[in-house]
């Protein structure tokens, strides 16, 4: 009897004949379970981190993070390089102005201009000024310099018939056409200040009286709706940057590694090594080992990225000090100000989120026949996850709204939405605690259901079961 006449491929065997719930679970001793799980973790971990795609993606993401954290410093470097101190020529024909004259007047104007820089010009542009005075005899000479551009600005002070100060501003550039040039408004501000001081001194007021006259009233703003945010501006900026980088990183990694779990399960099924594996180990050991092994690889990558990110952010201040002489001025993210809690929460939510989603991904992977069907099978999970991702981006405009607070507590969406709320400083401590408790509960629940589907799916090579069948399995699958 020729053997090939008897080996009919088992294609027309009914689906339910192939569908089986793998029984072996529970009998394994704890020692055996731990041993096997750690063996499987070791295999999965090694398998993943030795893949070329893992190495490349880690390297690319590291590079992106390094570039990203150096960009503000680099921009600042180029911006400051282009704005050398603006030279202003001064001809004083008015005599003593508010008691100031010659060098002391120059000094007043110079400190006035440079001192107001950060408020008037805003962060980033950092223009500075030097004042050089000349006599009225130099006027034609200086005007020539203004014309040929070697002197940017010439300011001439006079007094009219009523002893009022008169300022004339000579410049080669048209101030109205150059919106970024803040020299004119700054000089105007100083001029009006000088004029007022001059008038009040002529009225007999002392400089102290004058300055008290112009001190603005104390004016505090209290918003009773918002949670009080006691953090500094720098801390808040750094908080949202970390939160957003964290959300994107969490979303990407959970999806990537969850997909890895689904593909891994489908691979074991597709290559039929599953049949040997379920003989050697229990389904629970296989499921736990796969999730924890791939999760550990994911955590390694996340950890490497976070370390590189923190290191390159910490490098910014020394670098700025080296480039600009002082770390003050410009856009300044101080990593040490960012609460350690936030960084820790990024890792906590990654771990919890991964555990939650990975078991679902594994269940889906166990239901397909071949690896190329995984993409379709996991679509519902992807959608579920995307909801939280989008809410975290749209919810930022009103991160303390009731609906956002509720969404942030739903375990599937906590990793992204709660992280956003923590980043924007609107999450209370009890909300964070509650979200973690809810996530852990959800992990237990989902893993229980997924493990049942997994046990049912791994030896099933027939038709994909309908949703109702799955629900029945999830509810009723017993140990045998």
């Amino acid at each position, binding site marked *: 009897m020729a053997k090939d006449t008897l080996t009919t491929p*088992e294609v027309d065997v009914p689906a339910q004949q192939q569908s089986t719930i793998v029984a072996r679970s529970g009998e394994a001793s704890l020692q*055996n379970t731990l041993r096997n799980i750690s063996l499987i973790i070791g295999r999965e971990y090694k398998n993943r981190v030795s893949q070329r795609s893992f190495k490349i993606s880690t390297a690319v993401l590291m590079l992106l993070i390094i570039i990203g954290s150096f960009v503000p410093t680099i921009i600042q470097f180029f911006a400051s390089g282009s704005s050398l101190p603006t030279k202003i020529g001064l001809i004083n024909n008015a005599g003593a102005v508010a008691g100031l004259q010659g060098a002391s007047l120059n000094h007043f104007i110079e400190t006035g201009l440079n001192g107001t820089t950060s408020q008037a010009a805003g962060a980033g542009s950092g223009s500075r000024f030097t004042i050089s005075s000349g006599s009225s005899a130099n006027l034609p000479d200086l005007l020539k310099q203004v014309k040929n551009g070697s002197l940017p600005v010439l300011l001439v002070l006079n007094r009219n018939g009523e002893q009022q100060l008169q300022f004339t501003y000579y410049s080669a550039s048209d101030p109205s056409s150059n919106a970024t040039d803040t020299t004119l408004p700054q000089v105007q501000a100083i001029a009006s200040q000088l004029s007022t001081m001059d008038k009040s001194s002529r009225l007999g007021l002392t400089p102290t009286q004058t300055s008290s006259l112009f001190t603005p009233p104390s004016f505090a703003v209290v918003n009773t709706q918002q949670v009080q945010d006691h953090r500094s501006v720098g801390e808040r900026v750094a908080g949202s940057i970390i939160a957003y980088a964290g959300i994107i990183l969490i979303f990407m990694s959970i999806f990537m590694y969850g997909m890895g779990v689904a593909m891994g399960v489908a691979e*074991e099924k597709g290559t039929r090594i599953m049949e040997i594996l379920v003989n050697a180990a229990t389904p629970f050991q296989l499921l736990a080992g796969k999730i924890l092994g791939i999760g550990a690889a994911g955590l390694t990558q996340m950890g490497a990225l976070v370390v590189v990110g923190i290191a390159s952010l910490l490098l910014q201040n020394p670098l700025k000090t080296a480039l600009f002489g002082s770390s003050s001025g410009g856009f300044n993210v101080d990593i040490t100000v960012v609460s350690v809690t936030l960084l820790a929460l990024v890792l906590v939510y990654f771990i919890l989120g991964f555990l939650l989603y990975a078991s679902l991904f594994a269940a889906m992977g166990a239901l397909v026949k071949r690896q190329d069907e995984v993409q379709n099978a996991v679509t519902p999970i992807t959608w579920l996850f995307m909801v939280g991702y989008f809410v975290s981006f749209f919810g930022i405009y009103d991160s303390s709204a009731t609906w956002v607070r509720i969404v942030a507590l739903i375990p599937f969406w906590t990793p992204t939405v709660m992280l956003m709320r923590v980043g924007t400083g609107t999450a209370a401590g009890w909300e964070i605690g509650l979200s973690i408790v809810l996530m852990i509960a959800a992990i237990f629940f989902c893993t229980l259901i997924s493990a049942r589907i997994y046990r049912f799916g791994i030896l099933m090579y027939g038709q994909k079961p309908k949703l109702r069948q799955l629900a029945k399995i999830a509810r009723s699958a017993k140990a045998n």
Partner: protein
Amino acid sequence: MGLVVEHINKSFGPLQVIKDLSMEVREGSIFGFLGANGAGKTTTMRMILDIIRPDSGRISWNGADVSQVPRKSWGYLPEERGLYPKMVVEEQLLFLARLYGMSKQAAQKELDEWFERFQINANRKKKVEELSKGNQQKVQFLATIMHDPQILIMDEPFSGLDPVNATVLKEAFLEMHGRGKTIIFSTHQLEQVEELCEDVVIINKGESVVQGRVQDVKRQQGRNIVRLKLENDPEVRWLDTLEGVQVTKRRQDYIEMQIQSDRNPNFIVEAALSHGGIINRFELAEPSLTDIFIEYVGRIALPDAPAAVNA
């Protein structure tokens, strides 16, 4: 004692795939597990391995329920072969052996021995997908036996092998038998069963149709085969009318017929002589397992019945 399967039943949904199946495999024997495709062989093997549980009935190994037998005792070669395609051969085998409970050192030692014997030392650092099919089969075989199991359950161990590799594997197979292992295997090559097995069971649609020692199974048939050749009468048409004889094959070199086993075949010689025939060949034979298999399992496996093999 050995492996005892007692009255097991298994249904998947409305379909009952195993019906009241009982069998006994003596410890240290080679046991042929036969049946057509879809007869329930793989399901039964999975139940013996306690991968799935029967709905009723009991399966025990030396008196202990199979769920209580350590995993290390079982070796399983599934019908659908599978290994991690992108994993290095050596790492893969060590991983599986350790998963079965072996220590790393013991697994390494065992691995070195078998690699030497199978002459695949050069392939130990290669990925499985880079191996030839024959070498993949060897690695697959090693994955089943490396942890030194007591009971080997092999689904079609020799399918898809060229004669050279089949011989290598058969030797390893016999060596496992020599070491006192109990081997249960299924095959469609029934000559191998006659060659290797002491005991056999044939199942059809989840039910045992015949089982026992191969010799007994053949005798149970209650029939003997007679092959006859007459030099002066190749057709021997008078045989069709002879009582107690059923002609099964008319070939150029001989005519094959079945007679009741309790009848002395001499009456055929007498009849031939009385018809003036010159006897060239007269031989008595037992029915082959193939004949028995076809008779019990029906026509689905007949080579000339393609309708049943609508793959």
